[in-house]
């Protein structure tokens, strides 16, 4: 048998799929912009509430 006949026949890898879930290795980056928006919002609210 030729290479092609072998690898498409008896020597083709068995088909038995498995799902390999991707692992988490990195912590998600903090969104600095979002953090700044929140801080600004917090400051504005504080200013409003204090009535300055």
């Amino acid at each position: 048998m030729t290479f092609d006949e072998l690898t498409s026949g008896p020597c083709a890898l068995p088909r038995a799929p498995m799902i390999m879930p991707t692992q988490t290795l990195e912590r998600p980056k903090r969104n600095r912009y979002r953090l700044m928006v929140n801080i600004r919002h917090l400051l504005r609210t504080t200013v409003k509430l204090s009535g300055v």
Partner: protein
Amino acid sequence: MKKLGLYLLRGGTIAASLAVGVIAFFTFLQVVAVNGINLIDIALSLLILVSTIWLAWGGMQGIIGLTSSAKRPLKHGAGWISGRTVVLMPVYNEDPLMSFTRLAAMDKSIKQADAEANIHFAILSDTRDNAIAQQEEDLFVRLVEECNGRGRFFYRRRAQNVGKKAGNVEEFFEQSGGAYDYAVILDADSLMEGQTILEMIRRMEAEPRLGLLQTLPKIIRAETRFGRAMQFAASFYSPVFCRGLAMLQGKTGPFWGHNAIVRVQAFVQSCGLPVLQGMPPFGGHIMSHDYVEAALLARAGWIVRVDDDLEGSFEEGPENVIDHAKRDRRWCQGNLQHARIITAPGLKAWSRFVFAQGIMAYIAPLFWLVFLLVSILAPYFDVQPDYFPEANWPIPYIPPSMTFEALSLLVGIFGLLLLPKLLVAVKASLTGQASSFGGIGKVFVSTLFEVLLSSLIAPIVMLFTTRSVYQVLMGKDGGWPTNNRGDGQLSWRESFFASSWISLVGLCGLLVAYQLTPSILYWLLPVALPIAFAPVILWWSSRVGTNTCFTVPADRNNPPIVDLHDALVEKWTLVKPKELPQEDTAGKDQQSEGSTVPHLVPSS
């Protein structure tokens, strides 16, 4: 209780290493600060502190290895093996004749062991070179014919080599993992006795929580002076240091990427590697994937272990310093990349420590280099001694001589390198193990020459490592060069071109030291001379020596698997491959049994 013992051992080893470092720190500070302390003195002492802790840590592993013995693994029978195993050989532009005959030899060795086991072999090719790929195709036909391997031997070549070796193996598991319980992962130069493979499978069967079992591969077929010294070290010292490592790591053992067996379900569940954010060298695909996979298995609760009592596991090593440096460049990038994942959520503390250790392995030589550079400049910042510290006191104060302390420190640091190796030689002499290494006299001579040769080569490797770290920090990706597995002998030209820059650094260093601080010139010579003569050392160490020392057991009694492989290489070289006959009933049976698996096992 076992855990407490492990924590005590780890804590004690770390404490002892720190204590040695602190002693070195204060001794050095005493020596350099005899005329008063300045910032340079403190910087030098801190460099000594870090470097000595690192040396002591290595030495401690040797001491633990010398004073402990391998635990007997869980009981396992010698009979029927129920689990299905696949032996995986990922290849990438390797010599197909050598790698495929290795698989044929392992298959023969398993058959000779006469065990009832369902073991398949898969060649996972990532070869990019079309000429080599054509050879792979031709020789695969030959391999199937040689081993009667229809339905047991598989070959596939990827169109895109995404994720390099880790991606190659991952793709296999995603496509075919459900067909197997265990996978023996090899390198293209791996060779394992059939009995060893069977024993590994049995140990996996005996311990259902065992996710990965690593063996300690010994180097074979080394010819050159450098190669034989590495082979001797791997055969003579490594088992002892590996024993020490095994004691310290407990169930959070190592994976060195090959000559190991994994439980497919455990690996698939826990080792799907992400692509790191950003570009290489720190981002992208994980290069030193094996360390990460071991950490992920441990994170998922699986046992990862190195069984140093398992013999019959072999690999080939680099035959010259340049090949060693090329391999180190790849490992350096991989290990430094671990800085990105050292804080990964949920990892065991020991896994994080292993990552830190791997990074330190490449940073440590830099500490020595900085120490040398600062030492040359130090006298410029020295405080002049005050001979008359008290007013109106006629007798001058002469600062005490610190020669004894300086020499003690030097002997101590060199002792940390030499003592564990010397103790291994003493133990081998007492236990009779020395006879397989050529006898007691030869063992001590080999140890001495190995220490001398590694002392000559260490400064050169230090500069290669420094360059690697610099390149990685500058964002240069080293890529995925093919391993050179030739005879490894370097020509003058190759040696010169690879190390002329090192030589230049050494000569400039000597010149600067002579101009600035001639008083420390002699102290620098043991490091500066090998650097200055790097091309000569590279060339000389890559030549085939007389082999009067560095004897290893394989020199006297070739391992059976190596003999089998040699015979197959000779046979395959002499006779050209031919096509298999068109029809074969036995082959058909094997096909239906092996290559198409009726049940699909998706992982959870």
